[in-house]
């Protein structure tokens, strides 16, 4: 795999279509939220318990990410620091079945860094 560096001129000013898109996105989200607020008064509330299965996986050992990084572009910045990721479990439904899915979250992501920060503060305590 030969590494190449691509120089691309930075995006010029936003196009009209792009601006329209951003506006449309914002109002879509706002509308959806407003609509949702109106329509949801009764919703079955189910206690969602953290699965035991997930508790076994300990997040505090950042692991080397192999598969993902090789596929990724080897950006200089990226190569430098972030070859690590957290393992966590994502709970979702497939049809009626609950599914626990192991996921890798690169430490760069907001979620993971928050998690890390929390862990550290807990350690301090």
């Amino acid at each position, binding site marked *: 795999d030969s590494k*190449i560096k691509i120089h*691309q001129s930075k*995006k010029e000013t*936003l*196009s009209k*279509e*792009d*601006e329209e*898109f*951003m506006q*449309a*996105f*914002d*109002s*879509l*989200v*706002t*509308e*959806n*939220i*407003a*609509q*949702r*607020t109106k*329509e*949801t008064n009764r*919703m*079955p*509330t*189910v*206690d*969602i*318990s*953290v699965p035991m299965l*997930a*508790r076994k996986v*300990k997040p505090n050992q950042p692991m080397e990410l192999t598969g993902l990084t090789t*596929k990724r*572009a080897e*950006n200089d910045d990226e190569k430098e620091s972030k070859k690590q990721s957290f*393992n*966590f*479990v*994502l*709970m*979702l*439904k*497939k049809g009626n079945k*609950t*599914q626990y*899915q192991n*996921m*890798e*979250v*690169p430490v760069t*992501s*907001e*979620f993971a860094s*928050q*998690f890390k920060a929390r862990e550290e503060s807990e350690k301090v305590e």
Partner: protein
Amino acid sequence: EDDEEEMYNVINLPSHACAYCGIHDPASVLMCNTHKKWFCNGRGNTSGSHIVNHLVRAKCKEVTLHKDGPLGETVLECYNCGCRNVFLLGYIPAKSDSVVVLLCRQPCATQTSLKDLNWDQSEWKPLIEDRSFLSWLVKIPSEQEQFRARQITAQQINKLEELWKESPDAKFEDLERPGIDEEPQQVLLRYEDAYQYQNIFAPLVKMEADDDRRLKESQTQGDIEVRWDLGLNKKRIAYFCLPKANDEMRLMPGDELRLRYIGDGHKPWSGVGHVIRVPNTKFFDYADEVGIELKISAGAPIEHKKDFIVEFVWKSTSFDRMQSALKTFAIDENSVSAYIYHKLLGHEVEDMVIKANLPKRFSAPGLPELNHSQVFAVKTVLQRHLSLIQGPPGTGKTVTSATIVYHLAKQNHGQVLVCAPSNIAVDQLTEKIHRTGLKVVRLCAKSREAIDSPVSFLALHNQIRNLDSEPELKKLQQLKDETGELSSADEKRYRMLKRKCENELLRNADVICCTCVGAGDPRLSKFQFKSILIDESTQATEPECMVPVVLGARQLILVGDHCQLGPVVMCKKAARAGLSQSLFERLVVLGIRPIRLQVQYRMHPALSAFPSNTFYDGSLQNGVTSKERSIPNLDFPWPQPETPMFFYCSLGQEEISSSGTSYLNRTEASMVEKIATKFIKSGIKPDQIGIITPYEGQRAYLVQYMQYSGSLHQKIYQEIEVASVDAFQGREKDLIILSCVRANEHQGIGFLNDPRRLNVALTRAKYGTIVVGNPKVLSKQLLWHHLLTYYKEQKVLVEGPLNNLKESMIQFSKPKKPLN
């Protein structure tokens, strides 16, 4: 050769390749459940990832992950309630375990039952962040992958989405197909003949019709819960909530909807009904409901409430009538007089005066005395074959029009036809003309007969009911009302009699009033009208205006104001080609000078000064005094007591809300709420206040914000009307708060840089106007720069808490480009 190879590559892309750029790593793509097309989570050259671009532009909400991706084939949905709207989905982490769960933001993520458990509700985050999906959920293609992929621009994405509406299987390559990009021919200022006129307008009308049909027919909505009712006329009425009724469907009374039962509790059923009620912007009980009156009541599954879907039944009637008017104009030389024919086409014609017997008194019985400029308008119009009357806000346009109609009718040139694009405008004018003592018939579309209005008693279908001259018809009508139907022989007889009586009533009327499109009603097809007046003609498209015109116009009066909002054209292509220009406007450009009404009776003189100078060459005079437009004992901190207006500087940066989007800045919403609250506390009734805000999204936000954060009772805020400028056109309120919200550094001020829209916004209030906005951003627009400078000069550009307003010393930005 390269081309060939590229073709080869294109053909071989897997079916899950991003429909925009071709990226096809299963970990990076998502399928839109509606269109079954795949898109990647890379943004390429645009401001959002391709999947988000698609979802927003095509208005889709549900997605599926690829089976070969890390999560396998998965429809993203809320763990608790199954909500699949990705714009509402997010996740929350467990407090101490490395687990996250997908939940919708409302109600599931905020549910109290979660509170005591192990979940950290405060950490809810949306799945879409910065307009792309979270990278740990759907991989973002690497930069290298993105560079290697097709470099599609936002503009091309737009075009592709447009193209998919017509041909869903189209590929990117089809964008280059000849003809696809062709813009329709532009409208002209002058036309050789009416054939050329028809050739140019007919395709635009067709485009608008196609767009309208696509939009409406795509509006099937499921999960509808019905509330059944019985109308006074014994017809079944179904009420239900349509989530998208207001913004996207643009539902109008009279539209047809098909209600379909899809549950198992009843045999399959579907019924068509006319909309008799649309959701109201005000909130009272059931205000969000749409009501339809079923055409056939029998057999409706009224024992069921759930499991209904609703489809829109698109009707081509109004477009057909425009097309037919264009054709009539071209081929029927009696459709209009020669003078009007050439004038409308922009030919040079020598002016002709009508030797009218001018009345001694110009004011009409039952109507207010006219002022000088109104008398001048009436007098001039009566002597001309074609006239334009420009009526700036509050200048008594309707009274002037009604007076003109009165004199026209008295001159015995036959019946007068009076039209306007909207039913509301027609009703208002009908009412005024009725007051002069003329015999008026208001012709309504059949589909709108169930809709009540202040002039219902003048409507043809009601006059028929009250007709005593035909006892047999009355009897049959009674029978029909009581039993719901007639035997086929009776029905035949009933229809025949009804048609005869309708015709008689129409023939005997002095004036017939209907919408522009309504003038194409078959019941008028045998009629000729020498005198035709079209009110609010600047809000009609040209073909719409032609529907009444071709009914024989010899003397044509167009009333309107081209300095206020023009007609709404949905199809962008048609609008670009000039369909959004009204006939009135084109005639002005052709050099026909409108007669301007010059005395305004609405606004406090301080409020009319800027609009007068900016939009009407300073010609607007005040027919009301400051005293008449002051609210006595109002305890409100106007910065200048004599000037009931100010610009309230909001400098708060837009916040990034928890939804990951930056929408309305809270500061501004809270400022608007405080002003409204202050007004109400000092004795103003909520329905005296109008809040104008640019976009639907902000409207909803403000309504919510006031109700939840306002210090007064929720119900009070519900009575304040919050709407767009467009919704306020033609209307007035005592006090107006204009919230410019959306303005930020990148996005300009969108809607408010249209001078006509600003004009409308600034001219709605009678007693006071308050503008809330960010002067730094707004002053970049020349027009706003003028406005802000004006406020500053008046010492009403202020900041600080409402009870301690201080003149703002903020520096304006340099305006960017001159107005076009």
